[in-house]
C-alpha cells in the first residue's frame, strides 16, 4: 500500500497539495509514481503562469508512459522545482518531498475544500489498484 500522508489533500488524478498559508505546494502521489514507473521527464509551467483547478498544467513522462498533470487549485505559479529537469527521478524516490513540482499562490483558497482527504484518497487507490 502506497504512502498517503494524512496532512495533505488529494485529487482523483493522483496529485497532492500541501497548504502553506495562501500558497499550495503540489506534486504527484506515491501511488501515481508507482503506477508510472521510472520518471524521466517533467514538463512544468514557468513562474508567473496561471493554472486552473482540475485543468492540466504539465506532463510527466516515464520510460513507458505519458501522463497529464492536473492542478489541485487555481492561481499563479510562485515557485517551480528547479531540480526536476536534471533529476526527474526525485518524483519516484521522494514524491512528497524533493519531488514536489510547483508552489501555487492560490487565487481561491476555497479550492482546497473540494480536494479529497487522505482517508478518501487511500480508499480510492485501494479500489483502483490492480
Amino acid at each position, binding site marked *: 500500500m502506497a504512502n498517503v500522508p494524512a496532512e495533505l489533500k488529494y485529487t482523483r488524478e493522483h496529485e497532492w497539495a500541501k497548504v502553506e498559508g495562501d500558497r499550495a505546494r503540489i506534486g504527484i502521489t506515491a501511488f501515481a509514481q508507482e503506477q508510472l*514507473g521510472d520518471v524521466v*521527464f517533467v514538463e512544468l509551467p514557468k513562474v508567473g503562469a496561471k493554472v486552473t483547478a482540475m485543468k492540466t498544467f504539465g506532463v510527466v513522462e516515464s520510460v*513507458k508512459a505519458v501522463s497529464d498533470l492536473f492542478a489541485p487549485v487555481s492561481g499563479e505559479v510562485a515557485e517551480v522545482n528547479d531540480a526536476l529537469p536534471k533529476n526527474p527521478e526525485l518524483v519516484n524516490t521522494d514524491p512528497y518531498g524533493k519531488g514536489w513540482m510547483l508552489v501555487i499562490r492560490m487565487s481561491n483558497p476555497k479550492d482546497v475544500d473540494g480536494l479529497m482527504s487522505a482517508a478518501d484518497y487511500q480508499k480510492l487507490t485501494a479500489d483502483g489498484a490492480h
Partner: protein
Amino acid sequence: MTDAVSTSPLKRTPLRDVHVKAGAKMVPFGGWDMPVQYTGIIDEHRAVRGAVGLFDISHMGEFEVRGPDALGAVQRLCTNDASTLEIGQVQYAALCYPEGGIVDDLTIYRLDTDRFMLVVNASNVDKDWAWVTSHSVGRAEWKNVSDETALLAVQGPRAEALVGRLADRDVIGIAYYHFATGAVAGVPAVISRTGYTGEDGFELYIAAPQAERLWSALIEAGRPDGLQPIGLGARDTLRLEMKYALYGNDIDQTTNPLEAGLGWVVKPAKGDFIGRDAIEALRVRGLARRLVGFEMAERAVPRHGYRLMAGGAAVGVVTSGSFGPSVERSIGMGYVPSAQSAVGCELAVEIRGATHAARVVKTPFHPSHTKKA
C-alpha cells in the same frame, strides 16, 4: 496507460505464474500476458548492461523445417543466404512480400544439413506460419514447435560465466551467432550466442515443461553475479539503444529492408527469393527514405507515431522512442527523406503540439558489447 483490449484470452508462457509471484507488472504484448517490469525499467536495464539479466521470451515462435529441399525452401522465403550457414550457425534475415514489404524479421538456425529452425516474432507467429507453409517449395516438411518450446535469454557481461558454471559443456568457445547443444542446470538446451540487448549472452531453447526448473536454477546461481529478471520494458530500451528494429514499430509490411537499414541481410546474388525483384528495383532507383537514429536536445520523450519535422515541414514519423537509460538522453528511430538522413542533420519532433529539437546521430546509440566486438 491504456492497454489494447482484446477479445481473445491472453496466451501464457510456462513461466507466467512465476512472474506474477515475483511481483512483476504484467501487460498484454502481441497476444501474450508478459512481464513488463519487476523492479523498474531503468534498474533492470542497468543490470543487463552492468551484470546479467534473465528474460522469459518464450512468446517467440519457432518453426522447424526438414527434408532434402529444406535449404531450398529457406532460401526461397528468406532474404539472406542460408547456404553459407554451417551446422551450428545462426543468421539474421527477413521474410518479404513480393512487393518488398517485410512479413517478419527472424533468425535462422542450421540444425543439420537438411534441417533448420526459424525463430520469429511472437505477434507474427500465425501470420508467418501461414506464409512459410503456403510459400514453401520442394520436399520440405514444416513443424510449428512454438508451443512446446520455451526460450530464456541470459544477457550481460556476466552471462558467460554464469551459463558456463551451469552448463555440462564449454560455452566460451561458442562464437557470436553460433549455437551448440548441451544441458544447462541439467536441462537439455540449444545454447545460442545471440540476443537483443547489445550485450554478450545466450538464448537458451528448451522444452516448455523444463522452463521453470531452468529459470529457478539461473535465478539461484546468478545471485552472486547480480542477476535480475528483466521485463519487456527494459528489453525495449536495450534494443533501442542498439537501433535493433522491432517488428510492428520500425519495420512492417509498408517498409522494405533497404530503407530499414537491413540491406546487409539481403543477398540477391544467392538466386531468387520472394521480394528480390522489388528490392533490386528499389536499390537501382535509390531510396526515398531511411530509418535513422536521432537524439533529442532535451529530455522530452519521442514516441511511436509522433511527427518528425525538418525545416518546419513534416517529413516522417517516429517509429520507436524512449529515454535511453545508458545514454542518459531521449533517443528515437524514424523514417526521414534520404536528404535528411545523414549524421548531424537537424530534425525536430512534434510532442504535444510543440516542436522539440533533435539531431541524426551515429548508431548504435550505445556501444555494442556482443561477443564479436
